[in-house]
């Protein structure tokens, strides 16, 4: 495959207060083996050499695990491939002459800070509301093998815990719902005996915080599961619904 020339339509926005606009850029001679972000590096290098401000986008590990990178690429969160983050997307997924739209995540709860960078601190606040097990650091917790955990449960807990908190679920959901993200954390702990102890309180508080942040409602379209780079399953949302119902109806736990 030979190198390619592309037209990019990119959202530019000076800061949170300013209004943004789509701008058009051309990049030339991009190797199909380079990653999508390396293609943006090339564009930024060009912009700097023309004494213009480069495009601000979030990225860090560039190996698909830190969850920093985002980008809504030609109508899809993390671009056209499934099961990858933007940093794992390679230019071989595009063709010479393509026009690519690059937009930030769109959600009231995740406002744009600059260009393609959004504020995802709502996710942190949801976790702070209860995404933990209340155990202090101690050299005297019981032995790690003290509680056997069925392999199936441990594996499911791991699968839920694989969430990288990138926000693609919110970005892609037509309702801007954060249910997949929240349910992944609720599920991880609900599946483990250590986490069961405060499961009712956790789900009430996390859902309450999620609603407070202004995320939309889940209508089970399933788009989040499809676009999730880590393949977090919708089963987690169902589990959270169950957990929430039982917390609300059966337990005497309250929010707070």
């Amino acid at each position, binding site marked *: 495959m030979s190198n390619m020339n592309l037209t990019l339509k990119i959202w530019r926005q000076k*800061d949170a207060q300013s209004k943004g606009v789509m701008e058009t850029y051309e990049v030339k001679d*991009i*190797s199909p*083996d*380079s*990653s999508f972000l*390396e293609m943006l*590096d090339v564009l930024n*290098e060009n*912009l*700097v050499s023309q*004494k*213009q*401000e*480069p495009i*601000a986008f979030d*990225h*860090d*590990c*560039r*190996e*698909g695990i*830190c*969850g*920093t990178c985002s980008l809504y690429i030609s109508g899809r969160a993390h671009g056209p*491939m499934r099961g*990858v983050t933007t940093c794992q997307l*390679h230019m*071989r997924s595009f063709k010479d002459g393509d026009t690519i739209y690059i937009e930030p995540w769109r959600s009231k709860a995740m406002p744009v*800070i*600059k260009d393609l960078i959004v*504020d995802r*601190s709502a996710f*942190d606040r949801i*976790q*702070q*509301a209860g*995404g*933990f*097990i209340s*155990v202090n*650091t101690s*050299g005297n*917790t*019981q032995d*790690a*093998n003290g*509680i*056997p*955990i069925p392999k199936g449960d*441990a*594996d499911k807990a*791991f699968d839920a*815990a694989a969430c*990288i*908190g990138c926000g693609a679920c919110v970005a892609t959901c037509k309702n801007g719902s954060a249910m997949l993200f929240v349910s992944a954390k609720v599920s*991880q702990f609900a599946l*483990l005996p*250590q*986490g069961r102890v405060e499961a009712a309180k956790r789900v009430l508080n996390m859902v309450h915080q999620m609603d407070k942040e202004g995320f939309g409602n889940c209508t089970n379209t399933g788009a989040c599961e499809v676009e999730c780079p880590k393949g977090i399953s919708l089963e987690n949302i169902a589990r959270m619904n169950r957990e929430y119902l039982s917390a609300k109806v059966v337990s005497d736990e309250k929010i707070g």
Partner: protein
Amino acid sequence: MSKLDSKIPTGPIKDKWTKHKNDINVVNPANKRLIDIIVIGTGLAGGSAAASLAELGYNVKAFCYQDSPRRAHSIAAQGGINASKNYQNDNDSDYRLFYDTVKGGDYRSREANVYRLAEVSGNIIDQCVAQGVPFARDYGGLLDNRSFGGVLVSRTFYAKGQTGQQLLLGAYSAMNRQIAKGKITMYNRHEMLELVVVDGKARGIIARNLVTGEIERHSAHAVVIGSGGYGNVFYLSTNAMGSNATAAWKIHKKGAYFANPCYTQIHPTCIPRSGEHQSKLTLMSESLRNDGRIWVPKKLEDAEAIRAKKKKPTDIPEEDRDYYLERRYPAFGNLVPRDVASRAAKERCDAGYGVNATGEAVYLDFASAIERYGKEKAHVLGMHNPSKEKITELGEKVIEEKYGNLFQMYEKIVDENPYKTPMMIYPAVHYTMGGIWVDYNLMTTIPGCYCIGEANFSDHGANRLGASALMQGLADGYFVLPYTIGDYLANEIRTGEIPTDTPEFDEAEKSVRDRLEKLLSIKGTKSVDHFHKRLGKVMWNYVGMARNADGLKKAMDEIKKIREEFWSDLYVPGELNAMNTELEKAGRVADFLELGEFFAVDALNRNESCGGHFREEYQTEEGEAKRDDENYAYVAAWEWTGDPRTPILHKEELTFHDIELKQRSYK
């Protein structure tokens, strides 16, 4: 005159830590509420320290440059975490973990620290399980282990290929609990740009809010640096794009000695680079070496044919393959330590046997593991005489269960199916064993300033064993620092809140502002990345996997030249008082440009080969690293003088009471 006092407790090695804990001061709970601690970095070390200190009752202010503490680069650690639990009944023990780590570090680490690390390793696993970290388990519901390089037991706990992620999310959840309680104030998207020292003690920092560009003052009774390693000095490494040495470098320039900068780990199993556009290198977990066999063709013509794409690896018959690690190191085979595996790969590629277009790659082949597991599985399923296809199918499934996410990652990057054709791998910069010098309490040479995790130098000597970085980060944060910091803070209970309107803060803020303004005002022609890439090339070519005196001198001169050019021809767009990603990078690269030269100074000083530091002049006839214990069994702790070329050397002699110094052998 050296003022290095490692404060190693006296007594037998296995009692040192217990004795020390008994001897040091403790701050009472009511007084802890009066004490502020700043923690820089929220990876495994910083995150676990911030959470533990807050649980104890201190007021913690935690800083990270990422948008959330959960994104620190510890998250990318794949393979696992060591602990001497001996769950596998394979004769593991604290002593054996200690021994393996010191030997793996080529006898350049501090015995007492390493023993303590081994001692608390079991607690880490207990703690993480209690926090809900979903480690891999067996069908009986108990924890599973795997084996890593440089050891003869299975002591590595893991969560698929995402162990670092799970451990970090554990520490992050512990932090969240404290943030919710108000015991940790979290400063996301903040970068520490200066340490404030008042009357010789660390009293605060100057940080820049990366969203608004605002320069802020923060005071505390102690400052803890857990900002990770400096591998990005090579430009291309497995580190995150934002990983930087700035916090560590700032405290170094304020008086903290920097130890052994030349000890860099080049990890043997990374995806080879594909071209000039590349911005980072991706690691393939060392755990793959449990099942993958490393080889290159035996015949030069085969290697050439493969490079020219005339032959495929699967075309090379078994007898024409050179499984060079198994050949050279029969006892450890493919599981030799990282430094040994990396050098062996370089040796083969330099001799012309490399297998990708650049000639810098070797194969990591899973075919025999797939066959072995396939047969095993067929046996379990009660199949007699299964077909070859069936065996392959079953075997691939087993491999997928073990390493699925890594295989998928490889396929996405390289666009080749590693189940069908061997992976290509090549060494890449991964971890830096060197770092800020600390004593047994993890305090730097600046009173009140601590350094933990990869940012310090303490536990891995000249080479780190796989799955030990996570262990060290969490040991420092959960189980060591929370005790040792009390010894210092016990004297601070009457200090009261530290004001930030003092001349020391004024001066520190001014120096930060001046420097940022200077970077913006150069208005030259070249971008930050331009200089970073040039620095990286010099580092890799002359200060990389193999070094020699001439090359190192050349590197020092070149880096100095690049640095001078940087300060006269850099162009940074944007403003100071706004989000400015180029300005952030510029500050970090400016520090790397000093650190790089200093790195070479240390490498030149160390006239021996040990672990990750390989000097071509000092090798055995078989090409193995040749240590010089008589002259170099010391930690080189360097004091900043204003010029990276001429730091002052302070030596901490390494004495080994519990391990006999000998030639490291994995044969």
